[in-house]
């Protein structure tokens, strides 16, 4: 038997809300299958399982907020078969009792047992079904116990948007349809019907979400500045070769396949890390852990404020086209919902690009337990002296913030030097 636990999806995550099960008892799962959606302070995250087997029991219901490490489900692995009676009866021995859940902050009460909003002729949802929804829509739905699977999504590809959930909230609050069934948790014991609760208008969920996001960023960044002795290096890189190459490459491509300027930069970071692997990894328990896989966290800002830094997993193994595809996919899912747990926890270094605005140089704060962050500013035309000649070139300021416990300035300098070298030979990117 294996226990599927509430994961820690960030260095400072203490608890999470189960939003949705994608499996039901009896389903077969394999490694890396997404089996649940968990709401952290930052976003709704798809969580993968790392065992092969059969789902024995789901112990936590959608809407429940539980501490990190709580057993959410039991997976019967192939090797051991046990009687199903005990597990199906409810929480297993060893699972934290309900009282262990720490008191929630005022106004953040756990959602009541799911209340179902049934749209006319909408198909019933099944727990294994994948519902596309924006993170805000998921949060609203969880807070108001509305089943996302029963809503008609009006976003791209039927994605459920916050407005759809708000519409459902308004409809149920105004006129709870008499035939609207109130059902208990899908696979738990039967619960008492719950009277429809009016949405709490005085406490808009959007503000709570923004506040939670700020708290999550605050905790991680305060820890970084408290624990990590940063050192900072900056170099100016002549981007004329890379930009010429990019222009030529994009001329060959349809508009849909065009590369963003940040793609060759990420590719060059991945290549430079192969030469200076010390910057790729973690500082954990007074030890430097260099990682082999190069998973580049890319800072993505959100329109509603805040940012998320999901990882491009195995970035060093990707071509520029694959990187562009991965980046497009990652940005889309960061903004519309559907990030996976591994993408939030397995970044081995971070890259932040503020070049869209007028910023010339980024002095980044490392995301613990990582040991480095690469910052890119805007590419600007600057006077450039080379071989005794003065010219005007497009110039990029690249910075490295690194953990001085893990590396010294010389390693950092070697990294920026390698980065520059790769950007002078774009055809080899």
């Amino acid at each position, binding site marked *: 038997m294996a226990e599927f636990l509430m994961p820690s999806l960030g260095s400072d995550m203490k608890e999470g809300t189960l939003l949705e099960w994608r499996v039901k008892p009896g389903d077969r799962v394999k490694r890396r299958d997404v089996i649940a959606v968990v709401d952290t302070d930052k976003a709704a995250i798809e969580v993968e399982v790392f065992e092969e087997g059969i789902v024995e029991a789901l112990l936590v219901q959608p809407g429940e907020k539980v501490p990190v490490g709580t057993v959410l489900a039991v997976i019967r692995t192939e090797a051991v078969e046990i009687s199903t009676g005990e597990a199906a009866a409810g929480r297993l021995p060893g699972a934290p009792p309900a009282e262990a859940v720490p008191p929630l902050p005022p106004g953040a009460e756990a959602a009541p047992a799911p209340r179902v909003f049934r749209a006319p002729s909408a198909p019933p949802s099944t727990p294994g079904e994948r519902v596309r929804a924006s993170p805000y829509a998921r949060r609203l739905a969880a807070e108001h116990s509305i089943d996302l699977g029963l809503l008609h999504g009006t976003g*791209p590809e039927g994605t459920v*948007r916050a407005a759809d959930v708000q519409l459902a909230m308004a409809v149920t609050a105004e006129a709870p349809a008499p035939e609207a069934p109130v059902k208990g948790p899908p696979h738990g014991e039967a619960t008492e019907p719950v009277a429809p609760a009016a949405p709490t208008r005085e406490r808009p969920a959007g503000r709570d979400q923004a506040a939670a996001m700020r708290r999550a960023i605050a905790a991680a960044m305060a820890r970084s500045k408290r624990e990590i002795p940063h050192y900072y290096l900056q170099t100016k890189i002549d981007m004329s070769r890379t930009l010429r190459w990019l*222009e030529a490459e*994009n*001329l060959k491509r349809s*508009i*849909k396949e*065009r590369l*963003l*300027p*940040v793609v060759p930069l990420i590719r060059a970071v991945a290549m430079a890390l192969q030469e200076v692997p010390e910057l790729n990894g973690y500082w954990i328990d007074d030890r430097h852990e260099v990682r082999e896989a190069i998973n580049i966290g890319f800072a993505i*800002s959100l*329109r*509603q404020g805040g940012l998320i830094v999901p990882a491009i997993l195995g970035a060093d193994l990707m071509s520029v086209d694959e990187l562009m595809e991965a*980046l*497009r996919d990652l*940005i889309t899912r960061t903004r519309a919902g559907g990030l996976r747990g591994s993408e939030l926890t397995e970044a081995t270094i971070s890259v932040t690009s503020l*070049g*869209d605005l007028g910023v010339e140089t980024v002095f980044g704060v490392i995301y613990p337990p990582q040991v480095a962050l690469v910052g890119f500013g805007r590419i600007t035309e600057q006077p450039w002296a080379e071989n005794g000649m003065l010219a005007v070139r497009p110039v990029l300021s690249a910075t490295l913030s690194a953990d001085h416990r893990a590396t010294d300035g010389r390693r950092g300098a070697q990294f920026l030097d390698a980065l520059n070298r790769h950007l002078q030979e774009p055809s080899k990117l």
Partner: protein
Amino acid sequence: MKEEKILQTIFKLLRRIAPEADPSGLAPDENIRRALDIDSFDALNFFIQLHEELGVTIPEADYGQLNTLAELTRYLASRVA
């Protein structure tokens, strides 16, 4: 007439990218990306969607001169079939 259709298409695409903003409130000569806080990824998506809606392929080299509603509508009106 053609300009009006183009403008409505632009508004529709901008609302998709920035649902909280009202693009019809933009001044003709206002920098759209700055006013609506649109990053390079969303800008690329905007041009992809313009291509899908209006059939106009905008070369990358022209991105820089398409910053305002006036510039966009003028550019597109001369190219829409």
